[in-house]
């Protein structure tokens, strides 16, 4: 007679948003295994219909506080694609900087505040204030530095103010660039300490082959802001075909919509990006990857957190380069744009459909808008990284549970929670597109 295990984690903690894990093992056989999403729906795609395309970024940024810059950038790309506007080189450089700050901020929060407590055997970062005071201080200091840099050119990190369709409403002055560079270079020693700390953490040993999907392009640098959709199974397609890359489908055991491409599931996120574009990492980042033994193709999902660390290094040094090159070339203030929802028709508008595909902290994010000839939104669609990862997480859980049945219920529960957390799921985002199956009792 095999053992029975019933795991029902309600309101999974230390993730963004609300999720439940449900696992049911009967007589040693896995009977049921879901990750359920219980976020209250907010209807973003529905409620921006009828509004100006120039308002889309302001509203969709509010889908998620932690990925606000990511939603901003995907939204702007989709909006500009729809109305046929091409951003300048300077705009793209500042947008890449904004994306770097987003990745740094989000990854640092995940590594230090959400994951480290598991690896150090405590319930949250709060007990770490007593036991690892300098570590917590460093984490908060680094996070604040990122926010301070954002404040200098985007107004703030959560729901950035200056970044709108067409470019930036305020461009950083010389003294701003100097302050930004000081903050970023000042962060290097904390980043080195972060790398040292991470090298001491051990991650669970679990492997499952899957397809990894992310942006790919023909440029030399690590693709984040634009490119085609690529996969480790050899797929490459234009972002306009994102629906063919996601193939949302309904599965009989659950009402949750899943995605797949070449096989039963795929993963997006830091590990996927690393597996796809490892050779394009900067030397500073590649050194760290080599030091912690990360190389393509890594199939242990728990190592997504380690891949995030490598990306932190990538983004920090890339940001320093961007600021230095802006200092060198000088900022062209002629490009500062006037807001006002295009009341003055400075940016011409035409009817069309546009797609934004941007690598945000948790993976590839798509926004798609259809606008009429007045720039009014007719249809909107957002496909969120966490949504794409849910199917892959469930496949991981189905392989993991039978491998750890000799452990106690508590250990199994923790291993599953840690697995879900490794993907850094952002459920407040994904609820906008996921269907929910309510299981178990609800508090």
């Amino acid at each position, binding site marked *: 007679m095999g053992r029975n295990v019933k795991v029902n984690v309600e*309101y999974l*903690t*230390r993730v*963004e*948003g609300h999720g439940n894990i449900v696992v049911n093992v009967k007589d040693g056989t896995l009977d049921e295994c879901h990750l359920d999403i219980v*976020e*209250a*729906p*907010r*209807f973003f*795609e*529905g*409620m*921006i219909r*009828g509004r100006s395309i120039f*308002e889309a970024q*302001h*509203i969709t940024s*509010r*889908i998620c*506080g*932690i990925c*606000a810059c990511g939603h901003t950038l995907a939204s702007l790309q989709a909006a500009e694609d729809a109305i046929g506007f091409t951003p300048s080189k300077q705009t793209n450089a500042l947008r890449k900087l904004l994306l770097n700050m987003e990745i740094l901020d989000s990854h640092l*929060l995940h590594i230090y*505040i*959400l994951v480290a*407590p598991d690896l150090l055997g405590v*319930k*949250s970062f*709060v007990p770490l*204030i007593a036991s690892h005071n300098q570590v*917590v*201080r460093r984490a*908060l*200091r680094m*996070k*604040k530095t990122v*926010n301070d840099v954002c404040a200098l050119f*985007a*107004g*703030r990190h*959560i*729901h950035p*103010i*200056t970044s*709108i369709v067409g470019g*930036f*409403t305020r461009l950083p002055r010389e003294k701003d660039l100097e302050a930004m560079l000081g903050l970023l270079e000042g962060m290097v020693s904390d980043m080195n300490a972060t790398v040292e700390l991470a090298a001491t953490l051990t991650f669970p040993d679990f492997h499952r082959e899957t397809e990894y999907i992310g942006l790919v392009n023909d440029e030399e640098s690590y693709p984040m802001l634009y490119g085609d959709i690529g996969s480790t199974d050899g797929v490459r397609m234009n972002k306009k075909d994102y629906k063919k890359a996601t193939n949302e489908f*309904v599965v009989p055991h659950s009402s949750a*919509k899943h995605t797949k491409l070449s096989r039963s599931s795929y993963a997006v996120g830091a590990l996927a990006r690393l597996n796809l574009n490892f050779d394009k990492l900067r030397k500073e980042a590649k050194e760290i990857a080599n030091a912690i033994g990360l190389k393509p193709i890594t199939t242990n999902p728990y190592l997504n957190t380690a891949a995030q660390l490598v990306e932190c290094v990538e983004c920090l040094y890339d940001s320093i380069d961007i600021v230095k090159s802006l200092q060198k070339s000088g900022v062209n203030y002629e490009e500062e744009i006037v*807001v*006002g*929802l295009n*009341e003055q028709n400075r940016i011409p508008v035409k009817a069309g459909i546009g797609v934004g595909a941007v690598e945000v902290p948790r993976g590839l994010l798509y926004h798609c808008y259809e606008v009429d000839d007045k720039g009014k939104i007719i249809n909107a669609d957002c496909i969120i990284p966490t949504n794409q990862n849910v199917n892959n997480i469930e496949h991981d859980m189905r392989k993991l549970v039978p491998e750890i049945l000799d452990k106690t219920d508590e250990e199994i529960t923790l291993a599953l929670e840690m697995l879900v957390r490794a993907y850094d799921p952002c459920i*407040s985002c994904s609820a*906008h*597109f996921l*269907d*929910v199956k309510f299981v178990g009792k*609800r508090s």
Partner: protein
Amino acid sequence: MNNKPKVAFFDFACCEGCQLQVANLGEALIDILEIVDVVEFREVMSEKWNESYDVSIIEGSITTPHAVERIKKIRERSKFLIAYGSCATIGGVNGMKHNFDLEEIRNYVYKDGARYFDTIPTKAVHEVVKVDYFVHGCPIYPPEFLEVLKSALSGLPYSVPDNAVCVECKFNENVCMYEKGLTCAGPVTRAGCNSWCVNNGNICYGCRGLVSNPNENGFAEVLKKYKISAEYIIGKMDMYNSCRLQNEKSKKGA
């Protein structure tokens, strides 16, 4: 257990960005944690608390029948309750769904799965339970949050500034957006954010809500002077203020 005040964070329908503003306080957060015990904060903590709360900080709007019951239970267990961020204080962007038939918008977004998504018209927290303190903004302005938290911990009242954003905007020496030929919600929106958006070259979108007694005649004159229709500006104001605009519409209709 020690005698520090017990503080808890709860999130309802929102983006959780206002909670994250707490994590963005930097090392100052450790100073706060020296004087209070944060007993629940699901986004960053696994700990749970079964006793009463001295201060409950509520983020998000009430948008489901389940949320109505949950917020009532939290209120019963809380000495002071803070509505935190626009979604909680005025309904915020969650109110935009009121421009649509709820059944229609639910089917548009969730299609076959729509039946799994219970939804009711968006309510700010004070429309469901008593609120002791308000921290407005999308996102909240951290210096104001610290003021409110200090007030709540010492049992003192906090008054949200009830003058227009324009007052702070003038102090910051910004050129008026109307002078630039643009529209801006500043003249009727509550101050307290230090005219954050206008300082950065953007307009005010009204995220802190309308002042309690907006100078409608004065604003009408401004709109007339710059030849802007009232419908146009209301169409923009409803991005954050739909809950209040709807309530006023239904009052007038009644």
